[in-house]
């Protein structure tokens, strides 16, 4: 077990190294220039060249990589070109909205998808199942930005229940900040619920016909207990996997949703950094996101141990 964990941790480091290197190369060979963006539309080529030199972007790529990697080994992700602060600080500032957005979205998605998925499988082929499956397909097909705009129009503009955009002004308390997350979380939760619902339904269908479910029923056990204790618990592994992957995706930044709702989260930071070519932020953010992704996958694997006693590493 400990050997397995050590192997996984070493593997995670290798993945991170590859990610860091690929990201470093891609952002630099992609067209665009942070100096040109910062200086604005009327800057001359000479101005751009002199700012590039000041930022160290005129050095050979290998030298820039060496500097970047040296910083990384010291735990320093560098300084943002545009934000006037270290990348780690910029990321830490974005952690709160992204964390809560992820949490709320997953909660909403889970609360919709798991009960409906279970009932859909239980009443397979019924009207309920058909409606649920159709709605799931619809939710999966709806672009989240479009759904976001619809929610804004109805709940924020027409009913005035929630703010349209942003994450609260100076001095806004936690409750005010979280109120800005309701609509984006609803938008993401609805879209994410489709996949979880389909996985829950499919997985439940697999186990509902298994012998142990029939045995439980023949023992005279109540249907709720059969479904929840025997069937659902065994159907949980693929559902957990898809919830974990959805959470990992959301932690890495619900890029479009954060942009539509003007949320200062990780996704928004990455989009702005890509548009401005803020290399240190792109590198740092993707490094952290990759680390979270790998970590969440690792944690899901560990969770299998709890859910299914047959799993051994």
């Amino acid at each position, binding site marked *: 077990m400990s050997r397995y964990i050590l192997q996984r941790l070493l593997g995670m480091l290798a993945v991170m190294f590859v990610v860091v290197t690929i990201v470093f190369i891609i952002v630099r060979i992609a*067209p*665009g*220039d*942070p100096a*040109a*963006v*910062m*200086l*604005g*539309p*009327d*800057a*001359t*080529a*000479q*101005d*751009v060249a002199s*700012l590039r030199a*000041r930022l160290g972007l005129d050095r050979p790529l290998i030298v820039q990589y060496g500097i970047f990697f040296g910083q990384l080994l010291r735990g320093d992700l560098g300084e943002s070109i*545009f*934000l*006037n602060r270290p990348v780690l600080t*910029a990321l830490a*500032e*974005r952690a709160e909205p992204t964390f809560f957005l992820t949490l709320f979205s997953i909660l909403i998605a889970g609360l919709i998808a798991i009960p409906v998925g279970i009932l859909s499988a239980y009443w397979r082929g019924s009207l309920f199942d058909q409606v649920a499956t159709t709605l799931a397909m619809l939710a999966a097909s709806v672009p989240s*930005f479009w759904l976001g*705009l619809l929610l*804004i*129009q109805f709940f*924020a*503009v027409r009913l*005035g229940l929630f*703010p*349209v*955009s*942003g*994450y609260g*002004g*100076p001095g806004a308390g936690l409750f005010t900040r979280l109120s800005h997350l309701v609509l984006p979380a609803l938008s993401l939760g609805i879209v994410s619920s489709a996949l979880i619902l389909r996985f829950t339904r499919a997985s439940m269908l697999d186990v509902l016909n298994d012998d142990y479910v029939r045995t439980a029923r023949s023992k005279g056990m109540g249907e709720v207990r059969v479904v929840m204790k025997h069937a659902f618990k065994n159907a949980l592994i693929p559902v957990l996997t898809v919830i974990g992957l959805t959470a990992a995706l959301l932690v890495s930044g619900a890029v479009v949703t954060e*942009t*539509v*709702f*003007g949320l*200062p989260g990780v996704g*928004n*930071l990455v989009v*702005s950094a890509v*548009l*401005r*070519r803020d290399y240190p932020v792109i590198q740092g953010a993707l490094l952290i996101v990759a680390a979270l992704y790998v970590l969440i996958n690792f944690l899901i694997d560990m969770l299998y141990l709890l859910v299914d006693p047959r799993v051994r590493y």
Partner: protein
Amino acid sequence: MRIREALLSGLAIVVSGPVLAQTGGVINVATIGEPPTLDPMVSTADLVGIVTQHFFETLFTFDKDWKVTPLLAASLPEVTDGGKVYTIKLRDGVTFHDGSDMTSDDVVASLKRWMDQASRGKQVAANVDKLEAVDPSTVRITLKTPYAPLLALLSFNNSAAVIMPSEKMDVPMKDPVGTGPYKLKERKPDQYIQLVRNEAYKPLDGAGNGYGGARKPILDEIRFVPVPDPNTRVEGAISGQFDYVDSIPVESYDRIKNIQTSKPVILKPFGWPVFVMNTKQGVMANTDARMAVRLSLSMEDMLAAAFGNPEFYSLDGAMYPKGYVWNTDAGVEGRYNVADPDKAKALLKKASYGGAPLRILTSRQYEFHYKMAQVAAEYLKQAGFTVDLQVVDWATLTQRRGDPALWDIYITHSPFLPEPALIGQLSESSPGWWSSPARKKAVDAFNTESDAAKRPALWAEVQKVIYDETPSIKIGDFNALSAQSPKLEGVVPAPWPYFWNVSVKK
């Protein structure tokens, strides 16, 4: 007696106007995004100027008629030695946000930083012989040759010659300390930029006059909130979340014109879209080929595709619209909105055009650029061009246009700049690299003439050469649409919206 008193008090209110307006109020201003920097010297981006003009100030600025007017300077400069020596008296009692007094040493240090760091400052630096503090409240600039755009460059709010304390000259800027009516309190990138009233600010006497005159910090706070999605900005205006919403799509005009929470702010005219030609290399290095592009295009169709509603654009070949002193028809006749493929074909034949792809660089960051490019491409194909429309993001465009081997036309736009010499395409070093004896003769004559009365005629010569040689093509005039809460009073439509002299109706 009572009637007389009432009349007098009424008169006092009329005369003093906003002076008596009570201070107070917090407003939220939705902007198109996060400014790339808060150093207004470094960037020419409009967004940087919009935010920083509230806490940084220049020696001069522009009044409502786009005439240069003093701001930190006590008066317009004394210009001697045939337009080569500018002696600038500074206002007394101006303090920085850190409490220190503004002196000529601060002004000299700031102007040196400007000439070193700002692209517009560098334009000036080449022509500056000496910059010195004559006494604590006087600065003297000695030029090598007369240079008429100097005052306009010192007045502009982006790539701006802002005045900062001499001990705050760090590059990059660490601590934004200015003299303006508002102070920077907090910046949370992509969340808000919070400005608070500068209690020590002493406005000029009288009323506001464009960017000049009295700048009264009536509001307690101004919060600039980046809202990058244009549709969300519209919804933010309609819901009343934002008190002012900058730059919204013209399609939203009908939605906001009849509601109670917001009303449209139209700046008419705001600016001009422009096709800039690569005169240095490739297909557009040939003057006849450039003229073929000009004669092949229907500006009317391009503007209609770009802006839809005719209330938001107008056909106008003159580089400056009516109402500006620079408005002239010189060179325009028969060369604007022609859409004549036969004439274009004849010119292409004369230019020995062999079918090489005409690479048009555009971006969807500004959707109207892209729409114009699509229409232009069809007209150009009709005229016989092989068109290669390259749609890239704005950062890529700004990089690629610096390399003459990569493009033939790029699309951009500009507000109507108060001084024509500030138009980027007139400079030989600006992407497009327009350089010809006729350009030099006309532009030099315009730039060195310090008699304001003679300059419009000289600008007409420049415009004529632009039409003769076509280094760029102006497509027309367009208006800008923003939205404001009906509770806001004192908002003046402006290319770089400002919120001093603005109050919230109680």
